[in-house]
């Protein structure tokens, strides 16, 4: 259950970044990137099914727990292999590794999801497509957008 992004809604306000940093003692796990003149894309951990970071982690600090990629700080040696392995650049190592923990133990819903002013983030995989289907249905029924 990672956080899914609806890029059409993201307004690049960087609230997710600031909020993530705020609840994780200063080290955030979201980065908003700006592409071209107005697109903005928050980049965060996908909690990959076959997570390269866990495969690279020899100490077992990063591992799969159901559909989450979780992290055991006690076991981390700070070697940085995970950082090299992650294709999205969303696990960091400064002394020890840190990455998105879906705000486990901090909030019921990941903080970035609640705080996003534009409702661009959600934990519902199908939400963006459902919205698109609903729009399409409405357009079809109304004979075009007004």
């Amino acid at each position, binding site marked *: 259950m990672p956080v899914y992004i609806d890029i059409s809604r993201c*307004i690049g306000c960087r609230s997710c970044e600031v909020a993530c940093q*705020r609840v994780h003692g200063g080290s955030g796990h979201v980065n908003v990137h700006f592409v071209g003149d107005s697109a903005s894309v928050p980049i965060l951990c996908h909690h990959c099914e076959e997570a390269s970071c866990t495969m690279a982690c020899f100490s077992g600090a990063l591992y799969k727990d159901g559909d989450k990629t979780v992290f055991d700080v006690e076991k981390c040696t700070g070697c940085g292999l995970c950082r090299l392995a992650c294709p999205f650049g969303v696990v960091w190592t400064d002394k020890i590794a840190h990455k998105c923990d879906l705000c486990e133990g901090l909030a019921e819903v990941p903080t970035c999801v*609640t705080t996003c002013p534009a409702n661009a983030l959600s934990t519902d995989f199908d939400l963006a497509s459902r919205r698109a289907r*609903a729009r399409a249905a409405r357009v079809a029924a109304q004979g075009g*957008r*007004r």
Partner: protein
Amino acid sequence: MTKVLVPTVCPYCGAGCGFFISVEKERATGIEYMPDHPVSEGALCSKGNAALEVLCHQERFTSPLKRKGEGWARISWEEAIDLVAKGLGDAIKKNGPGSIAFLASSKCSNEENYLIEKLARLLGSPHVDNCARLCHAPSVVGLNRTLGAAGMTNPIPDIASSKCVFIIGSNLAENHPVISRWIHRAKDEGAVVIAADPRVTHTSWMADVFLQLKPGTDVALLNGMAHVIIKEGLVDRDYIAQRTRGFEELKESVGDYTPEKVAEITGVPAGDIVRAARAYAISPASSILYSMGITQHTTGTDNVQAVSDLALICGHLGKPGTGVMPLRGQNNVQGACDMGALAEFYPGYKKADDSETIRYFSSAWRTEGLPLGPGLTATQMIDAAGTGDIKGMYVVGEDPANSDPCSHNVHSALDNLDFLVVQDIFMTATAQLADVVLPGAVWAEKEGSYTNTERRVQWSCRAIDPPGAALSDLEIVCKVARSLGLDFYYPDAASVLAEINRTVPQYAGITRERLERDGLVWPCPTVDHPGTPILHSSGFKLAEGRACIVHVPYRPAAEVASWDYPFILTTGRVAVHHNAGSMTRRSPSLISREPDLYVEINTADAARLKVADGDEVTITTPRGETEAYARLTDKVKRGVVFMPFHFPGTNILTTDITDPEARIPEFKVAACKISRRD
């Protein structure tokens, strides 16, 4: 010690998002979201998330200060208040009460603003104003004339039920980010979104139709849209006949604003003008959202009137999903205006030049000799300080030396005062010029009500104490007033609100007891009134209940590009900063994301100037010059450059030419030149 959650209202923009501050052992330890808040639904933008960073900031004032040589000396409250009483008192004695002026604060609560304007007027000075002058003064003048009320007509969540959202001169995605969620919701329900702005912005990212107009050509664009709507018969004839006056004159005056001609003036393709006009007019419920891009012009009042004309001829007012929505920039700029911290209005928008107003407040405040207005506006006060007509000023929570145009002149004008007292939380550029500095409190350190952009009055509770000897602004104003011999005995904000309930009819029913959680939207005339989220649903508070359609011809901006100054500079905000930046530039997680002043230059222009991305450049106008680094982009068209105004450099450049009626300076258009530094 247990954790307590204290409900507060965000201190930054006018959206009025709520959040809880968790307090442990009398320290603010974190923010908790408020999912059932009517506007924000738990969301906060980056500024809201970083709000606690200013609370225990090491640069906060912790004691009153007086100027000592080149530096400052910490002094006691007794000494500070004596100095203020003497400074203001002497000016009054020598030159009369008209020689002192007050700037109230759109960051402070309603109660505090009410007391500041009351203090000014009881002392006999008509000169009290607030920084609304620099943002929505044209809305106050223009909308009062056309619609009979200056506020946002519909609440923010109501935007979701709009079928066409027309955003002009507002980059709300960065300035009021939470409003975006309501626009997305409208889009989900099939709404068309139109955005008009000189820049490609995150707001235009949400739009279906984007009109990239040249700065200062808004009236032409709006007239062009009115032209199309009238010509194609898309007006609401019944609405025009029953609810308005002035349509024939408008029809006549927009007759020659053909899309082709308007395209030439604005740079917007004629086809897009027609598309936007049709979309706005045809939809069953259309709303217009606007902001500083409309108001901060020498034609600000005209722009506002042209906006409301469009709504009136299409009948898009008074119903869900419709409306004219001036988005207010500060957390309580609406409230500061409602409370009469304006040169031309006493509380409740009672005209300051009307003897009936003076009679009303003389009896309400049990006094005599209240000054007839209008007083000097915020911009005029500075001029008057420069010429020596104003001798003493009391500035609360504002930073004119940084936020006003042509800031070099503002510095020397304020320097010219005999006495300047500044009440603030940080050493701002204005405080640097003060004789006495009084340490105030931020939102979390005091209680009071705040009115957001949709006229929703919300109560914000005190979470912690102000640092050191700092006091709530309400306590300070009362101390100053008492030292000047006035009878200001208000134990708390609730007691001031009780007086506001008696003197401001729009707030009569907004009592402390009723201000839980969702707040109340004024006008709320009685204690059992539910508030009025949608204005003008049964006519207008103007003669015969009719709105006025005011036709306005297009006038070019005061400055145009010339051989010497070939670029048009326009200014605005970015998501991670707020206004003059005295708070956000001190907030680590915000300043780290946007640390320096930059200027956006079109790539083709930059190539001609031999400027590369990141180069240091000098921007020059007749007022002065500023350094910034270049950001090359196609967000701005050729010939236009953009700078955010959160850094002191920007307003060195802007012009102090103002709108003739609303007296707002034209922050959005200044002719400038650019050169690479080396």
